[in-house]
């Protein structure tokens, strides 16, 4: 191929490109000209596919032949809350088989909300000689047998992270399949496993991996064994304990305390299931170095939490149950000036009455006291516009704001007004807001504010809100950077959807369930927009057996370059361009 006389040789360009890691930048590079496109595609090593059905494995492989790291996401986010029926999809098998032959040098696979089988795990373990990283976040479909294959065959494995996956626990002995001469583990997260793993195998593994930096144990590892593990891995940076309970015994306590003191690098703690408060002081020696603390499974009361948190002056991330109470959040605001992220989970999400004194006040305190706070997930039972406005003014640097007022349609408890102006203040002041979840009583007004101000918003979650299609229209026509929109139980219907059909091609996906979208509108959308897969999910049976104007149950629309998928279960229909392909 003739080169322009005054351009750089390929090798130089390739070298320059190697400094460009972000997908966005690489995509931009590849659009400059033909030769840049070619050089870039041969040198791209990492691929992120945000929706596994947006493109086929063949197409990815064809364009990027030398990939070393793949990240795939499957089911829509609302699958986390059981809104996506079992069997919907997200199967990774076709990707694994395609990559097994095309990418022999693949090193990393990261999956989120996908279904992966033991066969796929075995295929991974045998196909990629230099395999290093396996991250399975909220995945399912596999058992400890698959893990055994990974352990036995992946000689260069560095990271095995099972996230919050559902694993069929057939035997704890899979861990013993790591050969005796295997020493390269850097990060191991088995927190989600329900049953015991072979403890002696675990101990030996931890003992012989000098580079182990992250170890997240599962609940079945008893507290009295923790000290032992810590002594074998004093270099740990991140630790997830097992069950944190045991009879209070001075010897166990002092061993544990000593072991923690020996971990000079420890910056992140999690686990803490079944906490016996008497053992919490064992971690006090390392509190001041902690950057991340996940106590969201720890049922300890506010006084204990306050004692702990007050010593963590360098804390950047805290996940905790609402047992912390407003008082605990006041203490947090006073002690942890470097806090960036706060998540407060509900201890009794299905109770009718508040079980703890945690209100909007706690969040207001933290927004006042923590100047770097940018990411919030907060479950509570009451909120006011005044509080939201205060939070917005305090923290214009907020980038992720997810508020869940537990009871749907809850108004401002002081004025009984909708919370429109409160959330309006959030989007108006927080100009870099990328993610927002709404709750409480909301009219179309709030969506007007969002459409007007939330120009950097990428992901929006809406539930039990709005009054009419105008609400949806505001979002779709106003939010320039919207990528993911998920809606449930809102009176949004056909008009706004069809009027903004083109917008949907600029987004990754749209989810609408228990809304007012008719089957007819879905068909129309599918016909008008060949670049979209319009999936109607309805467990009641084929939608064409009901009148076209009837609302469908669930709608999932996503852009794709590979057409309708072929692995749909009986309760999913894709509204295709060609009527002959539709239904029956």
């Amino acid at each position, binding site marked *: 191929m003739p080169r322009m006389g005054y351009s750089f040789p390929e090798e130089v360009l390739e070298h320059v490109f190697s400094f460009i890691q972000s997908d966005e930048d690489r995509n931009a590079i590849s659009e400059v000209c033909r030769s840049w496109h070619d050089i870039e595609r041969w040198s791209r090593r990492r691929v992120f596919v945000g929706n596994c059905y947006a493109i086929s494995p063949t197409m990815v492989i064809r364009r990027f032949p030398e990939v070393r790291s793949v990240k795939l996401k499957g089911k829509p986010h*609302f699958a*986390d*809350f*059981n*809104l996506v029926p079992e069997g919907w999809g997200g199967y990774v098998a076709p990707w694994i088989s395609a990559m097994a032959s095309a990418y022999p040098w693949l090193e990393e696979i990261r999956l989120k909300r996908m279904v992966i089988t033991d066969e796929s795990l075995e295929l991974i373990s045998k196909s990629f000689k230099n395999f290093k990283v396996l991250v399975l976040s*909220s995945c399912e479909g596999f058992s400890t047998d698959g893990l055994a294959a990974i352990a036995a065959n992946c000689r260069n494995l560095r990271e095995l992270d099972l996230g*919050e996956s*559902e694993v069929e626990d057939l035997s704890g002995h899979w861990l013993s399949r790591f050969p005796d001469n295997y020493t390269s583990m850097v990060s191991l997260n088995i927190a*989600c496993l329900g049953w015991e793993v072979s403890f002696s195998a675990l101990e030996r593994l931890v003992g012989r991996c000098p580079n182990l930096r992250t170890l997240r144990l599962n609940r079945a590892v008893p507290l009295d064994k923790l000290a032992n593990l810590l002594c074998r891995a004093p270099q740990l940076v991140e630790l997830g304990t097992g069950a944190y309970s045991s*009879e*209070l015994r001075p010897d166990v306590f002092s061993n544990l305390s000593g072991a923690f003191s020996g971990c000079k690098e420890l910056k992140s703690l999690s686990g803490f*299931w*079944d*906490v*016996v*408060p*008497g053992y919490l002081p064992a971690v006090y020696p390392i509190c001041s170095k902690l950057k991340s603390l996940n106590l*969201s*499974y720890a049922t*300890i*009361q506010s*006084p*204990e939490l306050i004692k702990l948190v007050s010593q963590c002056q360098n804390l950047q991330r805290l996940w905790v149950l609402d047992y912390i109470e407003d008082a605990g959040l006041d203490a947090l605001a006073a002690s942890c000036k470097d806090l960036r992220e706060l998540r407060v*989970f*509900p*201890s*009794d*999400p*299905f109770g*009718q009455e508040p*079980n703890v004194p945690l209100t909007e006040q706690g969040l207001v305190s933290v927004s006042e006291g923590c100047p770097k706070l940018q990411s919030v997930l907060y*479950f509570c039972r009451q909120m006011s516009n005044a509080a939201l406005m205060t939070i917005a003014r305090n923290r214009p640097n907020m980038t992720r704001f997810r508020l*869940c007022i*537990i009871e*749907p*349609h809850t108004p401002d408890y002081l004025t009984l007004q909708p919370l429109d102006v409160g959330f309006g203040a959030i989007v108006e002041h927080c100009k870099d807001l990328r993610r927002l979840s709404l709750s409480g009583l909301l009219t179309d007004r709030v969506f007007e504010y969002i459409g007007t101000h939330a120009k950097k918003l990428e992901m929006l*979650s809406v*539930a*039990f809100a709005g*009054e*009419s*299609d*105008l609400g949806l*229209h505001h979002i779709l*026509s106003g939010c320039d950077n919207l990528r993911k929109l998920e809606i*449930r*139980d809102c*009176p949004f*219907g056909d*008009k706004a959807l069809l*009027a903004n059909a083109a917008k949907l091609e600029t987004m990754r996906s749209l989810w609408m369930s*228990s809304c*007012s979208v008719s089957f007819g509108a879905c068909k129309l959308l599918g016909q008008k927009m060949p670049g979209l897969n319009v999936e109607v999910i309805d467990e*009641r049976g084929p939608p064409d057996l*009901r*009148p076209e*104007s*009837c*609302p469908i*149950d669930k709608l999932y629309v996503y852009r794709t370059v590979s057409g309708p998928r072929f692995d749909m279960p009986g309760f999913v229909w894709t509204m295709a361009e060609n009527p002959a392909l539709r239904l029956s």
Partner: protein
Amino acid sequence: MAFDKELNLEATELRLGLPGTKESEKQPTIAIKSNKRALPNFNEESCGSKENSNASHLIQKRDQEIASPAKAQVVGWPPVRSYRKNCLQLKKMEAEAAGMYVKVSMDGAPYLRKIDLKVYKGYPELLKALEEMFKFSAGEYSEREGYNGSEFVPTYEDKDGDWMLVGDVPWDMFLCSCKRLRIMKGSEAKGLGCAV
């Protein structure tokens, strides 16, 4: 934009709610919605014959009446991940199943009682229950002075066989170590932290 004018949304408005209900009566219908989707009922004109919509109206009404006192749990709300829900659920079930029955005696009472400690969330609830059960008043608890201003003092026997004052240790620790309760007469209770 002149969106409203062109589309005249009001006329074709699809609202959540029973046919004929006003906008203001929003709340209870939403909760039961997910269970009754089989009978389309948003808009009288759109689906089903007149007979059907009458029947569905009646069924909806009945369900609404049933649903109001005990709110139906909505699928996937509040948005707590299954993993977390299972952990909480497990804890609750373990707690409920196990039960922690301990004997309670009161000085001067002819027979003992048994209570399930797991039922109570903390000391205030436990003390209230004991006071009601035995018809006495424990008075005010303070760390320094124990129970002030009462004839009776709640005590418990711990794992080591020692008699301890109820309220000194954190609740969870108390649950783990309490073997039995004894409501002691004030005169005997001196030396267990009461004001000297």
